[in-house]
């Protein structure tokens, strides 16, 4: 719908004009455009969140970095993954969109930014607003000449669902060290398949002191709508990002933090991955039946389908009642991304089936 421009609308800043409109799914479509699995939170998690709400623990601002036990849980998780951290180097953010934005906006300001291909569009606003100069490159090919700047490593990549091979990470780490790069390791996509060779970038030799890691609790089915993620890392890269987050939203919604705390202490990541993987298999089987190629997934959260006319498939899906992610808009042309549904799995499969028939039948 085209609206007549109001005085205010006509005076919007230039930076606001470059961004695509926000998606606004109506209630009668199944939204599979996310990069996180949908689903329901567990009764135990709900009970913990309700306890916190009823005890009025969620009424007031929390500590700006986040509730202490949640920061400690993140720090412990990082330490267990080979990145020793104390809780003062952790800040709880709203959803992963916020964590990515504050990280990129704070660390990319005026910098040369190196972004391996395919480059997810999720960093666009942060890069544009920061006035960064972006160099994209193939991480498997020749690495750019660099001296200072910022490297963003998306692992798993939110537009392929694939992890970066450990050998490639090690090569990037050696390069980053030699070129004195700061690093954002966006490791928020998940759950990761147990067999996937996932390695935290900050755990590589010399990387802890120059890496900011982004993580998310959205990999717990149903917790995506609670919008809670985290940033953690060495003081040099952590402090400006933490300060920006706090200047934008002060602290993260308390109820979400308590839900995340319950997830951190009560949820078994392996069980989640196995449960979501079953639903992912149903989508992969459907694609196999239609002989539609897809990228071998390292995360169970979504499936990335290789299709030349991605926009046409996205439109056909929309017509059939399902919204999927068009790779042309996400930063990976020639693909679509389909999140793994939960309660709507059967309906989603039926709609996808119809859309694939429609597109392939033409």
């Amino acid at each position, binding site marked *: 719908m085209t609206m007549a421009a109001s005085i*205010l609308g006509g005076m919007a800043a230039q930076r606001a004009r470059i961004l695509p*409109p926000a998606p*606004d799914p109506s209630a009668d479509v199944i939204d599979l455009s996310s990069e996180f699995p949908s689903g329901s939170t567990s009764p135990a998690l709900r009970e913990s969140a309700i306890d916190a709400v009823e005890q009025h623990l969620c*009424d007031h601002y929390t500590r700006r970095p986040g509730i202490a036990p949640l920061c400690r849980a993140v720090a412990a998780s990082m330490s267990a993954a080979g990145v020793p951290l104390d809780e003062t180097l952790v800040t709880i953010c709203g959803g992963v969109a916020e964590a990515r934005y504050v990280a990129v906006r704070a660390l990319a300001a005026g910098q040369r930014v190196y972004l391996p291909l395919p480059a997810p569009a999720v960093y666009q606003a942060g890069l544009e607003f920061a006035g960064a100069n972006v160099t994209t490159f193939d991480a498997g090919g020749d690495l750019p000449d660099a001296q200072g700047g910022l490297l963003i490593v998306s692992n798993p990549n939110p537009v392929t669902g694939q992890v970066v091979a450990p050998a490639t990470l090690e090569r990037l780490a050696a390069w980053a060290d030699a070129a004195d790069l700061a690093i954002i390791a966006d490791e928020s996509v998940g759950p990761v398949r147990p067999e996937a060779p996932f390695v935290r970038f900050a755990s590589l030799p010399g990387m802890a002191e120059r890496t900011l890691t982004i993580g998310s609790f959205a990999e717990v089915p149903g917790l995506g709508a609670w919008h809670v993620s985290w940033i953690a890392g060495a003081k040099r890269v952590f402090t400006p990002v933490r300060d920006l987050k706090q200047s934008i*939203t002060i602290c993260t919604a308390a*109820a979400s933090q308590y839900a995340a705390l319950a997830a951190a202490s009560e949820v078994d990541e392996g069980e989640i991955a196995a449960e979501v993987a079953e639903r992912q298999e149903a989508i992969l089987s459907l694609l196999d039946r239609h002989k539609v190629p897809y990228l071998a997934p390292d995360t169970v959260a979504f499936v990335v389908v290789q299709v030349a006319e991605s926009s046409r498939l996205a439109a056909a899906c929309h017509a059939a009642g399902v919204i999927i992610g068009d790779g042309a808009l996400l930063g990976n042309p020639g693909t679509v991304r389909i999140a793994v549904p939960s309660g709507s799995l059967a309906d989603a499969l039926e709609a996808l089936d119809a859309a694939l028939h429609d597109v392939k039948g033409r």
Partner: protein
Amino acid sequence: MSKHHAPGQIVTPDELRAVAADGTKLRYALMELAGQIPDAITLGRGDPDLNTPEHVIAAARAAILDGRADLPVPVAGLPALREAVAENLRRDNGIPVQRDDILITDGGQEALYLLMQTLLDPGDEILVPDPRYTSYDEAIHQAGARMVLVPTYPEDNFDLRAAEVEAAITPKTKAILIISPSNPTSAVVSRANLTAIAEIARRHNLIVISDEIYEKYVYAPAEQISVAGLPGMFERTVTLGGFSKTYAMTGWRVGYVAAPADFIAALTAVKAATTGPLSAVSQYAALAAATGPQDVVAEYREIYRRRIELMKHGLADLGFSFGEPQGAFFVYTNAASSGIPAFELSYLLLREGHVLIFPGTAFGEKWVDWLRISVLQPEDQLALALERMAGVLARHR
């Protein structure tokens, strides 16, 4: 004074002074210091001590229990909440808004940030009343714009004078920021000045940003007027509001922006690409607040009014003057009679009296004799704070 504090903690005057140029950092440094004093009475932050109303708690519980909290909501906000906010603004503020004219945000602070990024281009100027809530500064700075301060004066209770606004306008001016009731002064902009500022905005083709986060806490005879409700002003006015102060819900982080739909669409695009949607559970809590019984607001208003009266009398007994607070829950007081600059005085009050009060320099460089006192403690605690302040002043005057 202990030298054995954890890295990053600030305990000495010199360490405080190192961050004093940044009002926001100064306030948080003082809060951090107060956090180390077990019996500190905190009259600093604008975080209501009252509880979120029980019907709001019940609504959040229900949304968690029945699984609605697990379902994604659109970036612009839960449609029912946008509708409820629009209805309240039409009814209470006379602002001609519909659902599509509302964006739900992660508190009022995020609303400000998104707004500055969406409205201001590098080099633009925005007029901001002085003293100010300095968290505006970073949002404006991030947009590459320039803040131009408009003076206000205690003689007229820090009203925003239309003539001062007009005098600050240059060819680069794009917007006028109005905060009424004001943080830190608790001033409410008078109808005469507001009407005149609206006329100035139209004449100079400027946008008005009206921060009305404290709108429900206005004390008669002052009256709350929304600029966007004045004739012809909606199309050039952005109204900011929220649930944090009105319903004692700072931890839920729910604010909103009201403006013409096409601008809200641009703002929503920026939100989608920067901070993303607000959590569903917080939005269901806010929906209950917006649509449920409003008696609690009147009850809270009366509590704050009584506390302000108590604080005013206590400050007068200490020999401090102030502009008459007309709204919000702050008293902005001139402590020059103490003979101690406000920065040092606030430090002494905290270290010796265990009372946290923010110095005026946390709200603007020139307010060296002023203190902002929030009354977000029970009356017995306020009385005790005044006693402690008297003790400190007696030792140092």
